[in-house]
């Protein structure tokens, strides 16, 4: 087991390194290929070529990519110093870079936004997990019934809904027309739990709708597959009550793929629910990333991308561990 964990850790770290290399390469090479100098993004409109060169020097953009990458990685591991004029600015580890737009280390910026994204992801995931799995199980057990068919058509409609459409629609109806929910800025849970929840509610529901649909379909499919397994027949042959057969024996197997995609989905979401956040105006990681992209704040973009990838990789890792907990065949392999 320890071995297994260690192996997964190594794999994850390697994965992260590759992702960082690729991301770094892409963001620093692509502008070059497209014929723009990233340093130009930082200087004013009227800056002279000398200014551009000086800025490039200051940002280290004149160095070969691998040197830049080396510094970047060093920053994550050990922190990094930046020339801030009269003195050096220390960006403590983990230093994902330094936003030259607003002169902040990227990492605290990310941490700042994280609670919003977490609030959104957790709230939505609770709704969709319960709703989706329940709907899927019921559908599978009532296979072929009107209920099943309508639920599955609904689910298919659900996965076909663009969140930026549902989000707008929901806001139009519930915020602007019916006034059931306040608009307003995101507030911290600690400051105002009710405000927090009511601001997030629509986001939770629309996001959950999308995922619940997927989960319902997945649950139903695996449930149907599972109930035709031999071991379910065995469970029935033992004289177990149907409730136990489904609730214990079948669910145990159904949960495995659910846990997998749940982990990955949460990982993706924590990396920034860009669309949801921009539709609902939630100042989370996704919004940060969009803003950073719009202002060409490459260190932030890079940071957010890596941060997002980190979440996914960590989620992958956790899923693998969970897998080992759930599935003894993996654990003992």
């Amino acid at each position, binding site marked *: 087991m320890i071995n297994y964990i260690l192996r997964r850790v190594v*794999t994850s770290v390697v*994965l992260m390194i*590759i*992702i960082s290399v*690729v*991301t770094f390469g*892409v*963001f620093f090479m*692509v*502008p070059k290929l*497209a014929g*723009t100098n990233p340093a130009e993004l930082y200087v004013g409109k009227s800056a002279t070529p000398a200014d551009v060169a000086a800025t490039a020097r200051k940002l280290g953009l004149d160095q070969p990519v691998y040197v830049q990458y080396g510094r970047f990685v060093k920053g994550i591991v050990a922190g990094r110093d930046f020339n801030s004029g009269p003195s050096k600015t220390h960006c403590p580890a983990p230093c994902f870079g330094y936003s030259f737009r607003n002169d902040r280390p990227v990492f605290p910026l990310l941490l700042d936004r994280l609670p919003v994204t977490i609030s959104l992801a957790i709230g939505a995931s609770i709704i969709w997990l319960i709703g989706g799995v329940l709907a899927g199980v019921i559908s*599978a057990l009532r*296979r072929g019934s009107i209920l099943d068919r309508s639920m599955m*058509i609904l689910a*298919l*409609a659900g*996965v*076909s*809904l*663009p969140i*930026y*459409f549902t989000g*707008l*629609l929901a806001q*139009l109806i519930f915020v*602007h027309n019916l006034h059931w929910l306040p608009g307003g800025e995101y507030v911290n849970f600690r400051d105002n739990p009710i405000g927090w929840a009511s601001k997030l509610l629509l986001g939770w529901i629309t996001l959950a709708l999308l995922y619940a649909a997927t989960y319902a379909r997945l649950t*139903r*499919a695996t449930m*149907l*597959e599972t109930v035709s397994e031999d071991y379910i027949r065995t469970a029935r042959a033992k004289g177990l009550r149907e409730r136990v057969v489904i609730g214990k024996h079948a669910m145990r197997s159904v949960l495995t793929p659910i846990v997998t995609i749940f982990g*990955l989905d949460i990982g*993706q979401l924590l*990396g*920034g629910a*860009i*669309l949801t956040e*921009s539709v609902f105006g939630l100042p989370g990681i*996704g919004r940060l*990333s*969009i803003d950073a*992209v*719009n202002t*060409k704040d490459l260190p932030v*973009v890079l940071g*957010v*991308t890596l941060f*997002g*990838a980190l*979440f*996914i*990789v960590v989620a*992958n890792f956790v899923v693998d561990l969970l897998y080992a907990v759930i599935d003894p065949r993996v654990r003992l392999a």
Partner: protein
Amino acid sequence: MTLGPVTSSTDVATPAGEETPTIADGKKIEGRSLGRIAWMRLKRDKLAMAGGGFIIFLILVAILAPLINKVLGHPVNEYHQDKIDPNLGGIPPVGTWGGISKDFLLGVQPVTGRDLFSQIIYGAQTSLLIALLATLLAVVIGIVVGVTAGYYGGWVDSLFSRFMDLILAFPLILFAIALISVLPPTKGFRIAVMVLIIGGFSWPYIGRIVRGQALSLREREFVEAARSVGAGSFRIIFRELLPNLAAPILVYSTLIIPSNILFEAALSFLGVGVPPPTPSWGRLLSDAVDYYEYDPMYMLIPGLAIFVTVLAFNLFGDGLRDALDPKSNR
């Protein structure tokens, strides 16, 4: 090849095939391929057929957009400023349902007064073009990588599988917008970049399926049989494996088209889609954000266009999967 006069060689008085194969209804059917069987099954799925019908309709609309537009719409980028109220920031007069009239079937776009109908049908062109090209790309890469990984196995498989994990571990949308936004936004180039990115990120889904299938097909004895009569890898991949992969590839391509449509629309929504004035549903929707309180039709129409299209593809893809995979759970 001649093997000389055939004598006994069988205990069976009548050739075994004489009474078989019989299928369900007892009628003999000559060479009924799996595809035909699937098609018969698909035909029975009304929702899938409806989805398929809509897809064909939509493709026709996209292809015939200029013609249709001539009859029912106005030139795609023609301004109709008389249809909007300049004092309200250029939205169509309040209460006119977004300017819907006999002349403007779906109303007009705020600010420019352009005919929304023509925007929508030309938007279908954009959406389908990008989604289909991206899907094609994804399928090609997915097949190549998936088959290679699945067929060769071993370290090749490990490498490619990790590679697919890697791509799936990217924060997709973020990476896409970040990348697209640093590239020059000219139309042709942007379409190419979007196709590359959407296709480049969606191929692992196909790749994984193909790999899994190839991995299990590889274990099937007919591959070994082919090898035992001297077939090379190339032949085995193309003649033995690929025909068997056709069904899952077809199904999953149909199923990634809708997600690619959504992806394209999302990118356009986030402002990194095809540049204006090329019509695009996603951009219309993002444009509508500014006006939706006063001109909800402008949001509803492109939103519904995306939704219905995606739904149609999903319905069809779902039905196709059920038809091609008898074990699937319907």
